[in-house]
């Protein structure tokens, strides 16, 4: 500790202020879901839970929610398969073009989403691929793969390859080695990568605007309503649900990867 006492108090105040800055907007919008009035002004004077049932019974909300869930699940599935396969290969073997593979994987998150979206959009138009759930899923998979890949790679780098050799030396066959040695070490990383990928896909909007055509995922529905300034109370209720739906998987994921994620015990 080289900081003076004053410096430490200053740092603490700064930290609290920044964390409040991060959370106050989210808490504010959560509270708006219970606003009785149609007008979005502060302070809220009367309260209701009516908008939740209104949102639940809205056919547009339902169909877009359903589409978002389907896209999220399929994209996550693809990401789990591809992401874990690639991370295995990268961590275990040295091969020609290894560096370029890692670079290519990072492209979808290093390039602005609008570029990925446009590129896919013009690819679909030129190749004559019709817009469907699959055009959305491919767009989402580009960045979901990276999330699973990163999570798995972090775990694999911390597990020694010799445990697999040890298992084989002790006479286990391929399946047994996978089931009893490899799987227990990677399972939580896989689940957590999948949850993060789902959370990302579920509220992705930029790439989706370019790959959805006339279809509406939940975030696209929200954006449309906001653009037109319609149905704002229903939007607030939907947003309340969306925040919970994305935050819960992430919290679970953080718990599962406590020792390999950013948040790790020392």
């Amino acid at each position, binding site marked *: 500790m080289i900081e003076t006492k004053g410096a430490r108090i200053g740092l603490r105040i700064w930290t609290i202020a920044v964390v409040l800055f991060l959370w106050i907007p989210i808490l504010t919008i959560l509270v708006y879901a219970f606003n009785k009035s149609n007008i979005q002004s*502060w302070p809220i004077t009367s309260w209701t839970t009516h908008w939740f049932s209104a949102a639940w019974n809205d056919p547009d909300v339902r169909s877009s929610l359903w589409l978002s869930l389907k896209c999220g699940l399929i994209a996550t599935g693809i990401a789990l398969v*591809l992401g874990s396969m*690639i991370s295995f290969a990268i961590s275990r073997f040295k091969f020609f073009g290894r560096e370029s593979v890692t670079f*290519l994987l990072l492209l979808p998150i290093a*390039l602005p989403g609008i570029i990925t979206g446009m590129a896919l959009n013009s690819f679909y138009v030129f190749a004559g691929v019709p817009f469907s759930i699959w055009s959305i899923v491919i767009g989402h998979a580009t960045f979901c793969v990276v999330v699973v890949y990163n999570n798995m790679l972090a775990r694999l780098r911390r597990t020694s390859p010799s445990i697999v050799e040890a298992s084989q030396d002790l006479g286990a066959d391929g399946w047994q080695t996978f089931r009893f040695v490899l799987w227990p070490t990677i399972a939580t990383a896989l689940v957590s990568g999948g949850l993060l990928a789902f959370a990302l896909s579920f509220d992705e909007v930029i790439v989706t605007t370019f790959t959805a055509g006339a279809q509406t995922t939940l975030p696209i529905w929200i954006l449309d309503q906001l653009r037109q300034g319609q149905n704002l109370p229903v939007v607030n209720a939907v947003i309340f649900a*969306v925040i919970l739906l994305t935050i819960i998987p992430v919290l679970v994921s953080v718990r599962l990867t406590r020792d390999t994620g*950013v948040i790790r015990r020392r």
Partner: protein
Amino acid sequence: MLLVPPVAAFLVVYVGALVALFISAFWQVDAFTGKIVHNWTFENFSDILDWSGPYLRIAGRTIGIAAAVTVLDAILAFPLAYYLARVAKPKTRTLLLIAVLLPLWSSYLVRIYAWRTILGHDGALNWTLNKIGLPDVNLLYTNWGMLIVFTYIWLPFMVIPVYAALERVPDNFLEASADLGAKGWRTFRSVLLPLALPGIIAGSIFTFSLTLGDFITPLLIGSGKNQFIGNVVESYIGVNANIPFAAAFATIPVLVMAVYLLIARRLGAFEAL
């Protein structure tokens, strides 16, 4: 062998699409039929680079705000990251890291919308200002409003790499500096800051790139008068259907990012990612 099919699929779809996009930047749209004609031309680029046209101003605004957001985020993030890495106890640290990371994963659209209600004329900000006896401010639909919202949504992307960089600085470096007679400020400037710099650069890659490519924030917080590159590109893909022009305009953020990444690599930011 395991790797060949997925990587091949990825290559074909993603890289193929990127290449096709930038080739199309040199094509044109027929004014009458609205179809893309494969005439090789630099016209899209000369339209963008025309000083009397709107596009250079839009590009300038986008890059300027992206740079300002990056600087602001670095200033906000550094003391927080320092506190996390070197002052906080392990339990507090875990809690604070979750508090910083969660907003990042909670819907980005929602967080922009939250600011729209807060900054609005009857919003929570003006209510608070009035409570403490200050006059209203109208930040919604202004560049200042966008600056605040961008700084807000990308802040966690800056905190994490700076935290990671500071966490790796060994305590005895700082003790050595103190033993050699450096006062607190001198240690900060000559020891801590250079060691944290790769982390700051790594964070700035995110804050800068994400701001350059965004069009939702200008859409919801800005107005027709202060558009970003992203808004123009989006409108030329959707409503105005001129993919070649959109592609040409989109090369600006890509080029800016390419140059930025090259500089970042020189400064050693990639090891800090």
